[in-house]
């Protein structure tokens, strides 16, 4: 039986195919403006890898920002639930998932059965999301994918004093003008961002077993900076961290096919823990 998961995010779309609960193919593409088109394309390419067609999908669960617009999905599940489910499928002992996406960051706590017990997220302030790194890479004229490798050459990392993406961009431009080395600047950026994400996660109290998912987890510099900021090692997911949400969706589809879950809608979790994102939230409180 073929179960599929499709995760359409703000910047990328991901698909995972399972045959009897085992991964047979995964695929990631850059998102198109239309979520439905992104979904069709990424699933089409994923099916091609597995040598299958759309009609061979027995059940598909959609997740992500564009989940309501995916024509071939039978069910929808929240990203929070899917990231938790996906991470625990690969690492059963995991109790906390930190996911950094292109335009948000979340921390999710799970119980031993994979249920979400608490979560917190930031999608209000660009700082601490993938967008932060993207803008900084743009300012330095490098690709985001290069940042991790370059940061390994850091000798004397800078301290980034601004939290706001707009102000931090100006700050790194003046650091470049002062003649600071790119590896030192990038390493400083990773630390600043890791600090911010770690504070988010600490808002719901850290667990011992933590993993990191989302595209930013592929950045080795960010990965180690987050470990440092959390003060504990992370468990690395064995498959592509960017496809964990889609994998979780596919697992929900698999559960539906095998009769383990009959109502995915109930998996949409409890209310998020309140989180102050920027100066203005603080003024309101």
């Amino acid at each position, binding site marked *: 039986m073929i179960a599929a998961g499709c995760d359409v995010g703000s910047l990328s779309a991901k698909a995972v195919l399972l045959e009897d609960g085992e991964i047979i193919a995964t695929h990631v593409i850059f998102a198109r403006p239309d979520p439905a088109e992104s979904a069709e394309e990424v699933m089409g390419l994923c099916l091609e890898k597995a040598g299958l067609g759309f009609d061979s999908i027995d059940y598909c669960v959609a997740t992500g920002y564009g989940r309501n617009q995916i024509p071939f999905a039978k069910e929808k599940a929240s990203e929070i639930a899917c990231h938790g489910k996906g991470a625990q499928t690969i690492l059963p002992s995991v109790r906390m998932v930190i996911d950094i996406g292109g*335009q948000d960051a979340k921390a999710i706590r799970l119980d031993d059965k994979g249920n979400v017990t608490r979560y917190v997220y*930031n999608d*209000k*302030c*660009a700082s*601490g999301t993938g*967008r932060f790194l993207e*803008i900084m890479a743009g300012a330095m004229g490098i690709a985001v994918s290069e940042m991790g490798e370059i940061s390994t050459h850091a000798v004397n990392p800078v301290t980034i004093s*601004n*939290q*706001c*993406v*707009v*102000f931090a961009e100006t700050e790194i431009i003046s650091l470049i003008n002062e003649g600071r080395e790119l590896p030192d600047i990038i390493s400083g950026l990773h630390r600043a961002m890791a600090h*911010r994400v770690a*504070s*988010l996660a600490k*808002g719901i109290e850290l667990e011992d077993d933590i993993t990191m998912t989302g595209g930013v987890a592929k950045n080795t510099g960010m990965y180690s900076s987050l470990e440092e900021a959390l003060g504990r090692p992370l468990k690395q997911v064995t498959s592509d961290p960017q496809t964990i949400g889609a994998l979780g969706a596919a697992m929900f589809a698999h559960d539906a096919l095998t009769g383990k879950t009959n109502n995915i809608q109930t998996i949409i979790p409890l209310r998020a823990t309140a*989180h*102050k*994102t*920027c*100066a*203005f939230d*603080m*003024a*309101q409180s």
Partner: protein
Amino acid sequence: MIVAGCDVGSLTAKAVILDNRSILSHAVIRARMKPNESAQEVMEIALSKAGIPMNNIGFCVGTGYGRERIPFVNKSISEITCHAKGAAYLMPRVRTVIDIGGQDCKAIRLDEKGNIVKFFTNDKCAAGTGRFLDVMCGLLKIDLEDLGKMNDRAEDPLTLASTCTVWAQAEVIHHLNEKRPIPDICAAINQAMAGRVAILARSVGITKEVCMTGGVAKNTGVVSCLERLLDVKIRRLSIDPQIVGALGAAVFARQHCEKNSGVFSVPKGGVSYDSRRV
């Protein structure tokens, strides 16, 4: 006695020359890379307008972000104190001062003697500062001066849902791609800006006598949105709102000469956001 005030901000530098009775001259320039160069240049312009040499200045007070690096000042005083002083000098009844600078925003509450009772500043987040408008004007390819006037031409004003400058930028790009009229987009930008500032202003308490200082006070769109949001009439100043900080510094300089006693303390009871908490 002739005195001067010099306010070196992140984007502009301002100078005011004052005698016993009135403002002799003032100048505003775009800031240079080094605060001392900005200070020197703006002061020279103000002095030449007044037709007096530097050595005629009896006392000079510096303020603003670059105040510690102005070579010719006798004393430096915080912007908050100077803005409050300048506003109270122009408008003795004023109780709430909203100052929006190039990279920050402050709301200051004064008592009937013009003393600072409470203040809030935001310099951590670009939203609600002049920088937000700067970024948006860059996207729309219009001058900052024109942004406010555009409000009057908006027929069907749009809105921006995001607080964050980065996300709001994406919204503006979306509106541009949808070919929405520029004045309608400008109205959304001014409204969003006013929304941020209103939050800060409310946190110090809105009184009947409110005035606005700083460059953004020249943006009529933001001012009228803010009046609606706060449900108060914002008093117009008789001088360029951008020079109020420098004026306050000059008033302190004059007081110093008159009393020859230091009253230059940083206000107590102020709260600055600690956004390090994420």
